[in-house]
């Protein structure tokens, strides 16, 4: 029942939006209503997952502990992004940058994007999950090229081609995993593949996981397959960037984790763990140096996402407490990165530039957004008391015994990233504002949603509710 509500709300909203011909307000009301229904339903599903281990409808949709964590992330960030969209899009319309047609396109694709992510998380079939994740590429391609500028088209084209190739390789990986299900037409759900994993040819399982990791790893933004990510995340409208960075990367990571469980059952944990460590450390190191030298604040945030996907990857690669910390890091990163992107949206609306050199004195021009950005910076760089400090500490301690060299390299890279972030943020937040820039926030819609996310992040940093602990513990047992 609740799964159907979550799936149908964005679908109906997108379809109804197609029929609207003149009123902006209707798009806004429909989208907010849909996001609220999704969040309410998600909250109601969680106790059921905790008490029964999973919540299913028929044989096609099922939510386990990890799925429930992702569902909560999608619905919370989805609601924040939807609310923020109102203020952001209204402002762009007021500036005559976009017209009615673009606004309509925006809300339709936003809802299809959210629908695709929920479908990918809820499905029991790896192929439907693949279709869902591919659908996120298709629905967001037009959102990335939203401003219809050559740079946006370039970013969207790169996004479309790189991700499509990546996902096709992932599809080949799925096909190889399905050799465990040969002779059983139609049965291709996770449970069946997992149950038959031990009968998989070890070579096939290894090759299949490599294809999965390269394929979905492209979508996750793991280096060296990350090339599309900084372009796409920096060119999309800010609410979409927050969803791309804060949510979609985790959804794609979910696919890797599902197949990791199958691979582990077929060939043992070491194979997948070593690969995750390899891609994790490359991602952290590469992103750290680019963060240091970055000149564009949206690209800075995009590279930070690559870094954090590397950290999560490292957590799952190290195993043990690293898995628990990796899952918790997913939650913290989603919140912190969405906060940063949404705050950066206010900065963009005010300064009309994404260059760090042009966006000085944010704290004096935008007092609330400036503080939000500062909090986001502290959280994303793992400064205490934010939860990311603890999760990064746990991940590194998990790796210290078995992989000391990699752990030290990761630690050094995190320091470089912190210094780079600090250097850039300091220049933006505390510099002297240009005289031509007027002071004051754009409107309340662009302030309240990130403030709510800050509140959630602070609460979760000091106090982890029992249901979150239970969900993470339950998911950590499998991965």
């Amino acid at each position, binding site marked *: 029942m609740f799964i159907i509500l979550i799936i149908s709300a964005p679908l109906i909203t997108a379809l109804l939006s197609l029929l609207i011909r003149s009123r902006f307000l209707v798009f806004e009301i429909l989208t907010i209503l849909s996001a609220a229904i999704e969040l309410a339903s998600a909250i109601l599903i969680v106790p059921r997952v905790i008490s029964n281990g999973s919540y299913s409808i028929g044989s096609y949709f099922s939510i386990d502990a990890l799925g429930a964590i992702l569902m909560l992330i999608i619905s919370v960030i989805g609601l924040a992004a939807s609310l923020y969209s109102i203020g952001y899009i209204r402002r762009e319309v007021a500036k005559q940058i976009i017209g009615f047609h673009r606004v309509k396109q925006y809300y339709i694709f936003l809802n299809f994007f959210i629908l695709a992510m929920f479908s990918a998380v809820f499905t029991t079939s790896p192929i439907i999950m693949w279709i869902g994740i591919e659908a996120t590429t298709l629905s967001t391609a037009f959102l990335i090229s939203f401003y219809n500028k050559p740079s946006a088209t370039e970013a969207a084209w790169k996004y479309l081609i790189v991700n499509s190739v990546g996902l*096709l390789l992932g599809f*080949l990986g799925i096909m*190889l995993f399905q050799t465990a299900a040969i002779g059983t037409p139609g049965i291709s759900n996770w449970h069946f593949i997992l149950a038959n994993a031990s009968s998989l040819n070890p070579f096939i399982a290894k*090759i299949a996981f490599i294809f999965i990791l390269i394929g979905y790893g492209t979508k996750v933004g793991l280096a060296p397959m990350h090339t599309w990510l900084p372009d796409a995340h920096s060119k999309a409208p800010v609410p979409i960037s927050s969803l791309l960075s804060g949510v979609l990367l985790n959804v794609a990571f979910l696919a890797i984790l599902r197949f990791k469980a199958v691979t582990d059952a077929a060939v043992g944990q070491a194979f997948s763990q070593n690969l995750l460590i390899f891609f994790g450390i490359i991602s952290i190191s590469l992103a750290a140096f680019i963060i240091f030298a*970055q*000149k564009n604040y949206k690209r800075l945030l995009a590279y930070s996402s690559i870094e954090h996907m590397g950290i999560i990857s490292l957590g799952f690669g190290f195993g043990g407490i690293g898995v628990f910390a990796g899952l918790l890091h997913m939650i913290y990163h989603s919140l912190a990165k969405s906060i940063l992107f949404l705050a950066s949206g206010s900065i963009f609306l005010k300064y009309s530039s994404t260059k760090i050199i042009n966006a000085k004195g944010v704290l004096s021009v935008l007092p609330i957004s400036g503080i939000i950005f500062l909090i986001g910076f502290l959280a994303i760089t793992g400064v205490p008391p934010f939860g990311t400090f603890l999760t990064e500490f746990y991940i590194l301690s998990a790796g210290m015994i078995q992989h000391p060299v990699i752990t030290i390299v990761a630690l050094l890279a995190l320091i470089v990233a912190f210094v780079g972030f600090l250097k850039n943020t300091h220049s933006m937040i505390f510099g002297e504002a240009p005289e031509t820039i007027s002071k004051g926030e754009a409107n309340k819609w662009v302030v309240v949603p990130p403030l709510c996310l800050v509140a959630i992040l602070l609460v979760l940093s000091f106090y982890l509710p029992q249901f979150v602990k239970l969900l993470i513990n339950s998911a950590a047992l499998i991965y």
Partner: protein
Amino acid sequence: MTPTLSQILFITNTLSFATIIFMHLAKKNSQLVSLYAGQSILTVALLYFSSPDGLPYYLALTLLITLIVKVLAAPYFFMKFIKKSQMKFASNVYLNTPLTLMAIAALIVIAFSQFKPLTAAAPGNENSLLLSIAIIFISFLLIINRKGALSQIFGVLSLENGIVSFAALAGLEETFSLRIGIIFDISVWIIIATIFVSMIHKQFGSLDVTTMKHLKD
């Protein structure tokens, strides 16, 4: 599987393999479209021949939809775009023809020498499966070697055909709804890719992706 059927599958896949080689050699965009249509017909034939239960109605419907999407609709849209934009010739390549052929030969050797254990799923179709893997690799080369946006699209679509032929030859079956879901996904992808190609042509005045240099760190 009878030896005759196995041979038919191998011949069909060999022809499909030939189309991707010719795609690398094609100079005109219209040639690429025709070669893709030909490869898609061969993929549909492969799906038909590899079906163990003859031609049940759901498979017939899937094949028909695949035929309409890949052999009729997609080539029609691409041909229309080529005529409208007068983009007759495919853009440049990074590797010249002899180097491209050498790279293709290397990929074939890798596919046949390193990926043999993957054929354990269907030992009767060993060579055909390895050919499918070679098609996948060579399609990937087409995407990275060509500078033209349209050529990259055909590389992606050919890659997809290679995976479909691999799945069919390995005996992997999917439900009707899943097959339709995948075809729907590919159809939407083709539509979106076509729209983007026209946007690139409009904004950059060319389909050469090397002209897109706005995004740098």
